[in-house]
């Protein structure tokens, strides 16, 4: 039998490749980004004077703060609307559709997930643009006279996001619903609860973890996304990732982009800690 230390060395040997990759291409780049955020770009050159000017300018420049506020507002809207749409869908699939067809129903619900992310936003542009599908249908039905200006507004961004995150939330809520023991329902019925009372007081509270996991994923993916707001929201109302990309591609101002990226990461981390804490409290 090899010694414990030798076994441990062998175990580490399996873990080290992944760890080294993470260190070289994730942790070190993060450190480099933090360094950049403390440097400045003046003119076309990089000045390696260490200070917090980039962070200070975030709070001084109103369009940066406005970007963060736009991001938060859009993300909150998307998360709430997606939950409201996805919960009944997950519930109907889990409760109303026979087990034979549940798999198909889920597969159909997430089918658009397999379209390319960039193309999916473009497809919404087809539907929502000024002479697109929606406007032409509404005009021919005589609901409206002049086309609605939806493309390049917040409504379009939110629609595109909701379309993506309804699928995600349907999956997490469905997974939570089907693992509930039928005994809860029987016990509630034995104690005299009707269908609605059982749902409201028993099933709904038990599925909150599924909702929370989905909501957290929605928050993180939505607030960090550049593609959907850029294609659907246009340039009228920038969100933080759009502002970061502008600094990188247009102005080549890496220090400012780095500082903004770190601010975005801090916001996501706060949400992560809050969510993890909440789930822990729920479990105990």
């Amino acid at each position, binding site marked *: 039998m090899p010694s414990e230390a030798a076994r*441990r060395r062998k*175990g580490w040997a*399996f*873990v080290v*490749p*992944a*760890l080294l*990759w*993470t*260190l070289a*291409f*994730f*942790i*070190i*780049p993060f450190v*480099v*980004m933090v360094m950049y955020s403390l440097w400045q770009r003046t003119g076309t050159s990089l000045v390696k004077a260490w200070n917090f000017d980039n962070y200070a300018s975030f709070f001084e420049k109103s369009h940066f703060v406005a970007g963060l506020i736009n991001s938060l507002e859009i993300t909150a809207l998307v998360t709430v609307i997606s939950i409201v*749409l996805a919960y*009944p*869908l997950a519930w*109907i699939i889990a409760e109303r559709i026979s087990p034979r067809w549940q*798999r198909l129903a889920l597969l*159909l*619900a997430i*089918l*658009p997930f*397999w*379209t*390319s*992310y*960039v*193309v*999916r936003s*473009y*497809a*919404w542009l*087809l*539907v929502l*643009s000024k002479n*697109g*599908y929606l406007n*032409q249908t509404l005009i021919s039905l005589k609901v409206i006279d002049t086309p609605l200006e939806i493309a390049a507004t917040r409504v379009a961004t939110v629609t595109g996001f909701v*379309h993506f995150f*309804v699928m995600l939330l349907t999956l997490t809520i469905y997974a939570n619903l089907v693992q509930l023991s039928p005994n809860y329902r029987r016990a509630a019925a034995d104690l005299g609860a009707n269908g609605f009372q059982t749902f409201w007081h028993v099933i709904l509270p038990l599925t909150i973890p599924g909702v929370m996991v989905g909501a957290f994923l929605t928050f*993180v993916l939505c607030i*960090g*996304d*550049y593609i959907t707001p850029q*294609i659907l929201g246009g340039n009228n109302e920038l969100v933080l*990732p759009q502002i*970061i*990309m502008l600094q*990188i591609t247009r102005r080549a101002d*890496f220090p400012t*982009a*780095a500082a903004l*990226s770190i601010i*975005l*990461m801090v916001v996501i981390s706060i949400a*992560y800690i809050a969510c993890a804490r909440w789930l822990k409290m729920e479990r105990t």
Partner: protein
Amino acid sequence: MHRLRSIGVISYLLLVYGFIFLPVVTLVLFSFQEGRFPIPPFNGPSLKWYQAVFSDSKLTSALFNSLVVALLSSLVACFLGFLAAYGFARYRLPGAGPIKAAITAPLTVSYLIIGFGLLVTFNMIGVSRSLLTVGVGHVVINTPLCFAIIYASMGDHQLNIERAARDLGANDWQVMLRVTAPMLLPSIIAAYFLSVTFSWDEFIIAFLLSRFDVTLPVEIWSLLRSGLNPKTNAVGSVVFLISVVIVLLLEFTIFRRGALSDRKS
């Protein structure tokens, strides 16, 4: 009452599935448009935009680049993830908690930030942008995914079979490659294909880290600058078709077994 509720359920399903399918159906339908604009009225069907896609060498080489990057980077990600999962599941390692957290950390950071971090780092040490740097970025985002999927499927029930193999004289490598890996094959394949689809569809890292040779999402992105165009519809439909074929293949091959055993129990 019961009937009323059924009507409510059915109309809700129609509404939500309608919402889910609306853009996809519009995309595919107007890829067959005859005219120059993918907006109503529909005046097809015509295959000329598909012809335009396949005769566009920029698009076809981007498609090829995307496939190469996705297949190879996922191979690396799966290999790294499998090794780490094996190490953590089969050896008691002190300080495993923080290391596991470090390996899965990229899952919680947005792709934009991962891509930008790599961009400034490569910039600083003078590595020029190419498909290779894109692949490196995709390994960063997919290794934690592969690790998590494979680690979750490694239970104690496989331990006895591994022990039996060892008693029969197999060495560590033989146990890992000829006993453990085959037992975990379904989850390894699932991790690989999920990783392939993520890499195949990834835009922002590929956009930031590529230069002359680009992947398909980046090429589609530059196509978008020309506004609404049936050619974009056609590319989008082709990508959709490829993904659906992959999903259906997976559904009817490796996941079939699981579905059957569920039904029996």
